[in-house]
């Protein structure tokens, strides 16, 4: 279990989900004649002018607005993603410039499949918790790609979550402790210069998602001396609907505990943003004194678990930026042809 020397917490948070959706059924219509089940009802689709940088900017603005913190006071702007717009040129510098941060910051892009955002969160805890800085912004954002017709295409979606870490005494939710667990697991990868990732078939599921999450989550619960029942809410990485429901049940969490943060049925899997946007949705409804258990997952593979406690400050901060539900409600469905054009799946001669 890792705990910073100086207690830290979230002083702001912000979600972003694009307004466009494609229904799972519409994707199935294209590839399976509409036969068979779909892993999520719909997934979010980035508009033609959106990418990780633009989504990170909006989520970041929401986090700063909730904290009522001038961007010049940030010491770090870190963006975790597997779909950075550039292979070489950091997203973080563009995001920092757009937010109005000073030039005297650390800015970097993090990479760890779906847990790149929580890597940035743990690093932010360390930066603030060591006293090296007071405020660090950790963002997880993705415009995930799935090969046309592949199982991944039904879920690979877009979204961003921004978590602003600061001293615990200013926090709307304290981060009490974290655990990180990793192992070399070839469950999912994308080689350099390849457009779409692939699954390492039999490595998906038990040895990957479930083993990593259960290892991190159980270790954190054990070392805190707490059980699932001691938490008001829980949120897990959500590559589909079934996996987070299953892992929650195995760890002893109820459907009610995960319901507010389980967004994958409606927006699919926004990779690095998945658990973070789920956490934002929980913070949108949580009350002071509530406790939240978050566990992220990234292929390759690893998992970060966190225990948070909501403070009185949340109530004053919440309405300063759009709620996650506001983004979820503005859904506009597109057909497969529009989706294919926007996502660059059409080759224009």
């Amino acid at each position, binding site marked *: 279990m890792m705990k910073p020397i100086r207690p830290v917490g979230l002083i702001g948070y912000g979600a972003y989900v694009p307004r466009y959706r494609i229904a799972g059924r519409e994707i199935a219509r294209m590839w399976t004649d509409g036969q068979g089940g779909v892993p999520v009802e719909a997934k979010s689709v980035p508009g033609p002018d959106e990418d990780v940088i633009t989504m990170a*900017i*909006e989520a970041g603005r929401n986090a700063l607005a909730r904290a009522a913190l001038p961007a010049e006071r940030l010491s770090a702007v870190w963006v975790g993603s597997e779909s950075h717009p550039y292979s070489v040129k950091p997203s973080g510098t563009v995001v920092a410039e*757009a937010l109005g941060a000073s030039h005297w910051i650390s800015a970097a892009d993090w990479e760890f499949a779906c847990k790149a955002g929580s890597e940035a969160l743990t690093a932010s805890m360390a930066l603030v918790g060591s006293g090296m800085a007071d405020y660090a912004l950790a963002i997880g954002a993705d415009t995930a790609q799935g090969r046309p017709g592949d199982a991944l295409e039904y879920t690979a979606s877009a979204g961003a979550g921004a978590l602003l870490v600061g001293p615990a005494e200013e926090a709307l939710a304290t981060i009490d402790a974290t655990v990180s667990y990793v192992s070399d697991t070839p469950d999912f990868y994308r080689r350099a210069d390849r457009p779409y990732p692939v699954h390492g078939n039999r490595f998906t599921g038990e040895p990957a998602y479930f083993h990593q999450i259960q290892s991190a989550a159980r270790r954190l619960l054990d070392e805190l001396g707490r059980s699932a029942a001691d938490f008001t809410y829980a949120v897990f990485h959500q590559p589909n609907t079934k996996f987070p429901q299953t892992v929650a049940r195995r760890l002893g969490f109820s459907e009610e505990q995960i319901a507010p943060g389980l967004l994958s049925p409606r927006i699919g899997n926004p990779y690095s943003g998945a658990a973070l946007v789920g956490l934002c949705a929980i913070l949108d409804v949580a009350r002071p004194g509530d406790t939240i258990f978050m566990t992220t997952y990234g292929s390759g593979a690893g998992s970060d678990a966190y225990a948070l406690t909501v403070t009185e400050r949340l109530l004053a901060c919440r309405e300063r930026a759009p709620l996650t539900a506001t983004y979820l409600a503005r859904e506009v469905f597109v057909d497969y042809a529009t989706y294919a054009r926007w996502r660059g799946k059409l080759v224009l001669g």
Partner: protein
Amino acid sequence: MEIARHWRQRATRYRLEGQRHRHTGVVRFPPQPAALGEDPEMWEPVALSGRGELYSFSVLRQPPAGYESFGIYAVGMVRLEEGPLVSAQLTDCAEADLVIGMPVEMVTRRLADTGEDGVLVYGYKFRPRLR
């Protein structure tokens, strides 16, 4: 040349940064160089709120070169709360959603992709206000 041209405008484009006159409080956008004989220090940079009303709009059905990937899209003139009138692309909206006078807000989006070996250009657009 082109990279420098985009880079120079980043504060204006990313943050909607305009100028405020230190004495009169007049706000202008986009930023301009000082007039001949004017003290350049009189105009200080100011980040505008990005909130305003749709003053007028038009729909482009034949996009210019470099904008084909957006398909049909709308451009608008927005009267900002601080006063200036700004022209920009409108996003996250269909033609049927647009009404003159509607509240809009600034978002930072991709303006253009200057080609496989070019830079991605980001800047302000406006969308119907979320809340």
